[in-house]
């Protein structure tokens, strides 16, 4: 795949290296130090950092502002944008705003439903859906026009991504849905956290059979368990999550004091196994409120040092 944007993570994956990303959730307040502390922990061990956009529908500092903080620290942000809170005018406007700071990555999402968050009585927007947003950003970038047709002066140069859940229902369209995202213009995919490796490998195999891994970088999502309780919670409470029983058992068979260590082991083993899977272009490490462990995971998984690319 040829490089189309100045995005560092795009260049790294295009050069054949495994990409590594992690994420940084903005704070529920306006203190920039919180952002900077989290980002500092990720410096040097990942290629780019996702900045979540009011995740789980809880109000936080905006994704765009947080991305700018990261950019000013010399890090590469991935602007997450959900279609829940903004219509096509606001979405395009924020894309331009990000582009004005030379933010070169965007992840297009529909967003968790507001009923999960701290303002369940709010209205949602969903003027576009996540695929339509990806399509819109590609149009802005490649054609240099807004959705309305007018020309953009200095169009955004963004590497366009989306999320995918290889485990979600309905089963019949798991791969067709990926195909559709790619058709919409998605260039990289970050997947839902993977615990059921067999099922994930089967999904990648089917994607490969359709030639999709040639058109799009698939970054496997991983999240280390901090405890057996977290494993059970993810299995039973998080919609669309597939945590096999033996993984939960492995966590709960581990003594309490060593569970977090075991969680990291599972995560590292998962990366090591998936590194060998053809069609996996990188890893997205979501260490939820556990950013200090990302460097350890990356190092133990043999993904250091990160390639230097200009």
């Amino acid at each position, binding site marked *: 795949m040829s490089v189309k944007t100045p995005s560092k993570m795009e260049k790294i994956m295009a050069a054949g290296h495994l990409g590594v990303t992690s994420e940084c959730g903005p704070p529920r307040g306006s203190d920039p130090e919180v952002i900077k502390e989290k980002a500092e922990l990720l410096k040097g061990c990942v290629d780019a950092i996702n900045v979540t956009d009011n995740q789980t529908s809880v109000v936080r500092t905006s994704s765009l502002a947080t991305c700018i903080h990261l950019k000013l620290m010399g890090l590469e942000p991935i602007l997450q944008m959900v279609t829940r809170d903004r219509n096509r005018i606001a979405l395009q406007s924020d894309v331009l705003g990000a582009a004005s700071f030379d933010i070169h990555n965007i992840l297009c999402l529909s967003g968790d439903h507001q009923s999960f968050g701290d303002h369940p009585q709010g209205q949602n927007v969903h003027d*576009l*859906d996540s695929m339509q947003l990806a399509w819109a950003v590609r149009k802005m970038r490649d054609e240099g026009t807004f959705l309305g047709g007018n020309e953009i002066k200095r169009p955004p140069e963004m590497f366009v991504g989306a999320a995918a859940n290889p485990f979600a229902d309905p089963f019949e369209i798991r791969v067709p*849905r990926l195909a559709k995202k790619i058709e919409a213009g998605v260039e990289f995919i970050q997947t*839902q956290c993977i615990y059921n490796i067999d099922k994930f490998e089967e999904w990648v195999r089917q994607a490969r059979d359709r030639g999709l891994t040639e058109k799009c970088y698939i970054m496997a999502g991983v999240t280390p368990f901090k405890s057996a309780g977290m494993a059970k919670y993810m299995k039973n409470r998080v919609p*669309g999550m597939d945590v096999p029983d033996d993984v939960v058992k492995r966590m709960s068979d581990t003594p309490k004091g060593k569970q977090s260590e075991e969680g990291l082991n599972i995560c590292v083993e998962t990366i090591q196994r998936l590194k060998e899977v053809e069609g996996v272009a990188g890893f997205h490490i979501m260490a939820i409120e556990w950013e200090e462990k990302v460097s350890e995971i990356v190092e133990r998984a043999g993904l250091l040092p990160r390639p230097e690319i200009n």
Partner: protein
Amino acid sequence: MIVADKKPVEEIIGYVRDCKKVLVLSCNECVTVCEAGGKKEAGMLASALRMYFANQGIADAQVDERTLERQCDQEYLEEIRDIADQYDAIVSVACGVGVQFTAEKYHSIPVFPGVNTCFMGVTEHRGLWTERCQGCGQCILAYTGGICPVARCAKRLFNGPCGGSSNGKCEINKDLDCAWQLIIDRLIAIDRLDLYEKLFDIKDWSTDRAGGPRKVEREDVQI
């Protein structure tokens, strides 16, 4: 039909407590079928209001009931033209359309809503009504197996389910079907899963409420 739900009688009492003569106006259409504002429900409400006034010692209060065939058509609303003036207030237990049209036609009489108007939907079985249509003004059901993602997906997604679809249910509520699961099941049943693969264009919402209050004007039937 338009589905409504009863308002708590306390709320209605709050609207009319200072009135002496109240007309409870019901409608023979949708709200009758969904058992929120038909003749029967109007009778119950009127009876409750009369007892409320009596219990408060307001002996001269009068609460009457009347059922119109529809409150969304002028000719039926005209049926109360001769009597409307004698009332201090009308409680319309029709849908929001009926409440508004009654208020429009009886300009100087306060009209209060007696139900909460909810959605356009169906009777799944007695006592359970569910939403089917949001009247977006540009029907896409031909491409989605006859199941509407605008009305039935919590995020009105056009290009497939979100990651929260689980065992056929929506992430926001385990009792709620995932619209996209229904769509996919139906596309498989009619052997048109190919329709799913086509990327849906960005929707023109100007025919939805986004475009402001809407109207349908048909010159061919106007005289």
